[in-house]
């Protein structure tokens, strides 16, 4: 490796936030045309590192060299000017504008709309990313939205493209399209810094991997020659505990959904159409789907936040479609939504208050409306203890917890209430591997005890691990429910809707 092969060289980057050192003397080299993986659990410091490269965060110490010249971007504008582009995990697009308009908004000096549309077409064809510049972003799938972000970056002709967990919103087929594009880019000499915690992906795509743990670089490896298990153990720093379960015959039907139709209250939300399924006590039903295909709406329809006709949802044979969350909770139908802060928990309220939020009925935390704060505190304490939630105490605000710890709390809160049916959406999203294992094991233990568990998730590995039966949501419709055992990735991909409308073009 000679000096000129190195595009970006990072030496001893350090960034500290109050109470935590996000990056501690991290060094790495990215070669020209290399697909370089940045691997680590949540909170390992991946995001901070790329934010420093992209000029969003200023390092406390350390230096970067780009193309042989010192590189210290003060803002993303400067980073972009030097040829660094980034596709974020969360898109910043306007639903009500079309693709070309969205791209023009991000440009310092946008060309005429017609020329821009032409260039978008050229770039999207060149790299096999089918995209129509005239379509309204609000009508695009998550995969298509991501293409908008990628094309936006490619128009700048970047030397380094940073991708933050790009596949979390894609179907397997869309992942294939994306990988083909990335390989093409790398063949043309563009370097790619690829952040993920999906190990198999990294093994198929990346040339080199840097592994971070607790802010420090702990290892580098060549992903192709390293097993996923070894990489995972490097990430976690301990041996992984894989959930296990004993096969058991399913019990009676606990929850039945019959031709559920609900229009989404949100303008660009997904309406649920003719959803039919049932879950039995003791089984786990896994529902896959790309984000935005009705997951939030289905959870709301089951939790009681969205009401339907009574007969559309039955719990233990009782029609409950028209009952609100409180009545359903009392019967034993509990749920945990995807969004932790602001939906499952109130950010500025204490853990005691958040324990009360859903626990008040089943845990007997009130009488004639008067609250037993002592009991609520004990309940919060019990959740913290059983699920190993890392926090100084029950009186801390929910938002002071890290994502993984809050998720343990939110799931634990429902699990501890001995639900008859538990519905969870993205139970381990953004949670580190160890915590995710704890959560999955708790869900499996619940099923073991006769609870019917519905896991809605975008993480296929997770679903394969916990599900007895499996189905996928696609544009508000549910596929046929099939046994999870023996499903191939291709079959799952087709259930999830294939490559969303368009074919792989001109790769």
């Amino acid at each position, binding site marked *: 490796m000679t000096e000129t092969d190195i595009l970006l060289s990072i030496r001893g980057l350090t960034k500290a936030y109050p109470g935590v050192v996000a990056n501690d003397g991290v060094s790495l080299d990215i070669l020209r045309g290399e697909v370089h993986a940045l691997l680590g659990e949540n909170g390992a410091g991946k995001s901070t590192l790329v934010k420093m490269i992209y000029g969003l965060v200023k390092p406390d110490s350390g230096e970067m060299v780009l193309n042989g010249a010192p590189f210290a971007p003060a803002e993303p504008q400067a980073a972009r000017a030097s040829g660094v582009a980034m596709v974020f995990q969360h898109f910043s697009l306007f639903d009500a504008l079309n693709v070309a308009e969205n791209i023009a908004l991000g440009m310092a000096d946008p060309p005429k709309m017609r020329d821009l549309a032409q260039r978008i077409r050229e770039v999207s064809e060149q790299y096999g990313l089918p995209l129509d510049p005239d379509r309204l972003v609000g009508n695009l799938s998550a995969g298509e939205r991501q293409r908008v972000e990628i094309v936006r970056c490619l128009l700048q002709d970047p030397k380094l493209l940073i991708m933050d967990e790009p596949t979390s919103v894609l179907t397997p087929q869309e992942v294939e399209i994306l990988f083909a594009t990335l390989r093409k880019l790398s063949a043309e000499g563009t370097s790619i810094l690829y952040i993920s915690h999906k190990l198999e992906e990294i093994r198929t795509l990346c040339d080199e991997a840097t592994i971070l743990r607790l802010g420090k670089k702990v290892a580098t490896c060549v992903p192709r020659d390293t097993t996923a298990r070894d990489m995972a153990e490097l990430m976690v720093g301990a041996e992984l505990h894989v959930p296990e379960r004993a096969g058991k015959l399913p019990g009676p039907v606990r929850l039945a959904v019959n031709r559920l139709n609900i229009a989404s209250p949100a303008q660009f939300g997904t309406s649920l159409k003719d959803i039919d399924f049932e879950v039995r006590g003791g089984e786990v039903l896994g529902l896959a789907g790309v984000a935005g295909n009705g997951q939030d709406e289905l959870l709301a329809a089951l*939790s009681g936040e969205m009401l339907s006709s009574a007969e559309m949802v039955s719990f233990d044979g009782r029609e409950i479609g028209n009952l609100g*969350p*409180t009545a359903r909770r009392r019967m034993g139908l509990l749920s945990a939504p995807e969004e932790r802060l602001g939906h499952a928990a109130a950010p*500025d*309220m204490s853990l005691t208050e958040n324990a009360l939020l859903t626990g008040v009925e089943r845990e007997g935390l009130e009488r004639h409306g008067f*609250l037993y704060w002592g009991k609520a505190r004990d309940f919060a304490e019990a959740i913290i203890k059983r699920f190993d939630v890392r926090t100084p105490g029950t009186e801390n605000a929910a938002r002071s917890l890290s994502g993984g710890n809050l998720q343990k709390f939110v799931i634990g809160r429902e699990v501890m209430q001995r639900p008859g049916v538990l519905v969870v959406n993205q139970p381990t999203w953004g949670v580190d591997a160890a915590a995710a294992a704890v959560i999955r094991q708790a869900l499996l233990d619940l099923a073991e005890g006769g609870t019917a568990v519905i896991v809605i998730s975008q993480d296929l590995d997770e679903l394969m691990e916990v599900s007895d039966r499996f189905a996928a949501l696609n544009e508000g419709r549910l596929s046929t429910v099939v046994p999870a055992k023996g499903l191939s990735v291709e079959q799952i991909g087709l259930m999830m809707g294939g490559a969303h409308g368009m074919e792989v073009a001109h790769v």
Partner: protein
Amino acid sequence: MLRLEKRRQPSRGWAWATPLLAVLATLVFGGLLFAALGKDPLVALQTIFYDPLLGEHAFFYRPQLLVKAAPLILIATGLSLGFRAGIWNIGAEGQYIIGAICGAGCGLAFYPMEGWFIFPLMVICGALGGFLWAMIPALLKVRFGTNEILVSLMLVYVAEQLLASVSLGLLKNPQGFGFPGSRNLQQYDSAHNAEIFAGTGMHWGVATALIAVIFGYILLNRHLLGFHIRLTGEAPRAARFAGVIPARLVVFCLGVGGALAGLAGLFEVSGPAGQVSIDFNAGYGFTAIIVAFLGRLHPVGILLAGLLMALTYIGGEIAQSTLGLPAAAIQVFQGMLLFFLLAVDVLTNYRLRFGGRVKA
């Protein structure tokens, strides 16, 4: 360099310290304001804050303090419930006026009959009047999704027109020599909100305000409904997830706010004011908004803030008459209090950092 750094959680200490800091800053800058107007700032501040409590004529002003503070506390307590839940009732002034009209109207309907039941009946009518007036924005919001800020505010001006109309028409004193305004309820024993203990300023409105504070405290801190109110304000989606029905909460918060404002109006019209007249309303409904925020939307805080606000009113009037300070200067002074409070509020959620960046 000065930087703001978000705290991991709101500081409890600062939540209580900021009102004091705001009062302190108001004293300093208010003093500068009075100095700029050519008055001795220390004398001016002494006139406003010291004289009404401990000065030579304090025996006269102290009861006034309760009389002025009671409606502010009563209204602000009701408003704070809504504000906690993110329901913005800006129209307490209107609910206050309608409460006074309904209550006084009920009393005057019995004139000149005497009976123990008349005053309690007036209290009920006053509360009901305020409640119904607040139901207009509440039901419009629930049914059609209108903005309660606009509707409740606009209804203040409607209420003012109604007040003028009844003063000149329906409730006009037949023996009033053609002057606008109703009979004086102070001279109608069964309808008079007299002092419970003579000379203390302690009338039934003061007692009700104290009861409202206690109930507000219990509701917000010990009751599920109060928890849901706070939850709705903090995280509306989480509240729906918890089973809160937003429409019911809107009706409850606006209803309670309206009823308490109506009560305040009734106690005022049947006591200190005495009669329904064109300029009966004195802006208590608007000032109560400041009181509610100054008291951090906390019942006990509101109690203290109401007393403080009343003090600036009374002290301000004394300063006007003895020092010749313009009325506008007093209003600026009161306004400063709110602005400083809002400004220093940032310290509750953020930490100030001086100098360069933090070293690891």
